[in-house]
């Protein structure tokens, strides 16, 4: 079925040629660039990533072999450093926690968790994550209907160990709990906008609009009666309602590839047996949301950090995190098998993006998938040798088809890489982002990528 667009709100109002971020777009009318971060937990095995190293002639180890089929569209970054050890004591959590928050390159706050702080309860990071910060800017400047997509498979509880998205602003702990149900997400993004029968749809919209008017008015009045802190919290609520209003107005997109999905019967989203099926559904939703230009950035997580999921389908009896603590050969064999499986599963997203036609090519041509983890390797908990794999056409912004060994190179910080991502997404004005201590070689994008 075709999803009809209810009006042409954005595009008409969102573009102004004088704005600097437009410079990064290849050409007027070119499809927009997109980014998906894909998280897999517990690091990998640093020495087993490649059997041959070399910028163009590298050979993947078995663990990374699922990526081989996408070779010409890869930029493989070996030994990215997170530098969280540079954060002041008391402002950093341990590697799993702080490393899992690496998309939000800010110090941790205090006050919530008894494990991992130094002299006080550790808290959530105090600043926005990449997906949310870029998404907010696009939401404001391009009038996109959604700020970001924020998905995780599993865990009906949100805490410092499985929260990757943060709203900010800098200096404020504001974790954004992810959506765990692709069914709810699909309804929210698509089906609510396209119910059977125009009159039923009109009735529901009228009811929602009428309620939103009252709710917004009441929130505004309440904000005038409470403390500044409470007012700020109510403002988040008010903003959420304004977002809904825009989402109801915007409807789904009119792009040729923007068609509805066929969702299967609902699955239990907290049943581990559905892990892969849920991931696939999220990938379909991400792809279609991109094709419809509802949103251009998404964070996807196969699990929280430290995931102790048991990969029974791989014949395992111990949890992933438990295995990752052990340094012997048998444990590493299992870790490589888990990671290979997760990388293989993650390439389903590549294929979803490749299947969506756009401007003579596919959505994949104008997207990047950033595969990352909270740690370099589990047994040592190190954060100085991370593997980051960028995959996709990426609108030809980065020079793909390469493997870069960053050991000893300047600006190999994850934070420098995040600045590269800002630039890629059309914001060359972003030259520094994140806490300065996380970029010991200085701010700016990671060298050698473009």
């Amino acid at each position, binding site marked *: 079925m075709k999803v009809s667009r209810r009006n042409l709100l954005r595009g008409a109002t969102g573009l102004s040629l004088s704005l600097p971020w437009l410079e990064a777009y290849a050409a007027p009318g070119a499809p927009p660039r997109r980014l998906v971060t894909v998280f897999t937990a517990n690091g990998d095995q640093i020495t087993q990533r490649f059997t041959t190293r070399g910028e163009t002639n590298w050979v993947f180890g078995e663990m990374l072999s699922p990526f081989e089929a996408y070779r010409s569209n890869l930029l493989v970054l070996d030994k990215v450093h997170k530098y969280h050890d540079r954060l002041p004591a008391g402002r950093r959590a341990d590697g799993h926690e702080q490393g899992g928050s690496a998309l939000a390159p800010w110090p941790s706050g205090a006050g919530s968790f008894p494990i991992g702080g130094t002299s006080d309860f550790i808290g959530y990071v105090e600043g926005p994550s990449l997906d949310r910060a870029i998404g907010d800017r696009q939401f404001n400047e391009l009038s996109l209907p959604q700020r970001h997509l924020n998905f995780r498979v599993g865990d009906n509880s949100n805490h410092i160990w499985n929260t990757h998205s943060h709203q900010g602003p800098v200096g404020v702990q504001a974790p954004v709990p992810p959506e765990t149900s692709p069914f709810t997400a699909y309804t929210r993004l698509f089906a609510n906008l396209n119910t059977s029968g125009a009159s039923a749809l009109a009735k529901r919209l009228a009811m929602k609009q009428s309620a939103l008017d009252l709710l917004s008015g009441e929130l505004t009045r309440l904000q005038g009666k409470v403390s500044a802190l409470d007012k700020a*919290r109510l403002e988040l609520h008010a903003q959420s309602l304004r977002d809904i209003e825009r989402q109801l107005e915007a409807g789904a997109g009119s792009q040729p590839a923007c068609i509805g999905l066929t969702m299967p019967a609902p699955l239990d989203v907290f049943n581990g047996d559905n892990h892969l099926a849920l991931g696939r559904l999220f990938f379909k939703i991400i792809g279609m949301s991109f094709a419809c230009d509802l949103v251009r950035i998404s964070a996807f997580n196969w699990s929280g950090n430290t995931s102790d999921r048991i990969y029974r389908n791989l014949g395992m009896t111990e949890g992933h995190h438990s295995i990752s603590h052990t340094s012997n050969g048998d444990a590493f064999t299992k870790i490589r098998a888990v990671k290979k499986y997760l990388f293989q599963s993650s390439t389903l997203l590549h294929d979803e993006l490749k299947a969506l036609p756009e401007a003579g090519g596919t959505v994949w041509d104008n997207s990047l998938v950033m595969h990352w983890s909270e740690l370099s390797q589990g047994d040592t908990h190190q954060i100085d040798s991370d593997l980051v794999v960028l995959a996709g056409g990426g609108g030809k912004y980065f020079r793909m088809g390469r493997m870069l060994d960053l050991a000893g190179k300047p600006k190999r910080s994850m934070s420098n890489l995040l600045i590269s991502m800002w630039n890629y997404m059309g914001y060359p004005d972003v030259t520094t982002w994140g806490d300065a201590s996380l970029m010991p070689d200085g701010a700016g994008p990671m060298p050698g990528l473009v």
Partner: protein
Amino acid sequence: MFSPRAPVIFLVVALLGGCEGQIAAVLPRPIVAGTGGGIGHNPGPIEIPNPCTDAVSVGSAPIRRLSHLEYGYSLTDLLDPALASTVRAQQATLLADSVSLGFNNSATFLQVSNLLANNYMDAAEQLSIAAVADLTNLVPCDANAAGGEAGCARQFIGSFGAKLYRRALSADETTAYVGVYDKARAGGYDFKTGIQWLVFTFLQSPGFLYRVEVDAATDPVIRKLTGEELAVRLSFLIWQSAPDQALTQAVAAGYLETREDLTREATRMLADPKADRSFDFFSQWLGVDSLDAFERDPTSFPGLNPGLAGLLRTEAQQYVSHVMRDDPKLSTLLSAQHTYVNGELAAHYGLAGVTGTTWQKATWPGRRGGVLMLGGVLTQKDKPSRTSIVRRGVLMRTQVMCQLVSAPPPGLPSLEDVAGNVSQAERLAQHRTDSMCAGCHNQLDPLGMPFENLDAVGRARTVDEGGHPSLTAGELTGLSEPQLQGAVSDGFDLVSRYARSSDIRGCFTTQLYRFTTGRKEEQGDACSRYQLNKRFAASGGDIKDLIIGLTQTDDFSNRRVALP
């Protein structure tokens, strides 16, 4: 899957000498020097000088969004009982909130994101459809009578609004709701649809979703709460829900003004079955709620009851509610030598003589007792195939003793495997010979080792997973009470010492204070907590009396005025 409440991450291989000495400088009271370094502090009141002065002192009282539990309980209590299952189903669709201090009702982190606002909207749509299916139970008037439909709608706004907002609506608010109804009618929809739109809106309204105490510019710096405000605090304290009719009537009659009034109402409310909801506190405090993620390896535990997690949750619920009803002492909670089982759980534990589906009291045959030794508490953070001494130790150290576990310093080396076929306890003992590990593992392992005679599904055992004898010697450190410190022979010895400890009593008070106030303790409420602890001690550790005590503090009855 990884479980959320006491997420033990790096501890098995990675703790540090680094934590030694970091704490004492900044925390109010360093723990008594133990065998290793110091981790954490004890927030108990024992050595804290009396912080009270003549002036009334209070902590902060931010607005509080309803937790999802409070949302569900409120609607269960306020709506037609026939809608209870719809309420539960819709409550389950709400996006989980960010946890803080082990609880999911933190005033700071209960925010309304775009996703949650969508959830609220979808839930309100489903609930409003169900609510208007039978208007006779919902609308307090006849739309065909003299006042007509418009008059009846206005009456409905007044009565339903007062329930949902937990106060009478203002004239402006009423006008706004009349506007919602009018819009529906102007759109050509019928009376029933107009009522549905109203319910839909009420269920998402700030007046329902937030507990707000509004101050006036003329208020003093610290003001006494009104009866209406006290009623809301009281009902959410004890029932996690809105005031009932009796409480509302007490307010209207001026009988919720004094501390005696609060005691009277609190006592009445604690006798109501709704008081069983206090289990939510115990469940989150001790991680029973993370049994959702309970997963055990079928090879290691063949023939396990597939519903075990649910059975263990019910056991904990039964145990806590019986303690609260029969003998609500903290010492009883921590060390009573019985549990509650049905036939299935009795078979799992190997307890003879219990069959059928009825839950009944059963005495533990060996040295076992208390809430901490229940299967659903002790084992929920264990590994899929074995016990975790470290995680059990963390539960004791952080949740029961209110102490902190530090982050490891950067750059920990990889640890070699311990050679040979040794038990988990021996392997940890070897790790503790490494100074990098000893500082913190000395604080954790000796609190987990005493439980080694209970396996990872809560059953008694004499040999561990590797066939080694289950040794239960441990050590209790970090208390301010020398007579309770030192070597412990087994888990029951440890929990029996906890049951006698004033430090543990202080920790329990702190945990309950955090849960009921939705925030961390503050200097401003130090006097209230001090008096609460004194009361708790004087009652011999009576938890019900402690809950009543929570209504008697300055912090409960007053608020610091917070103007825009």
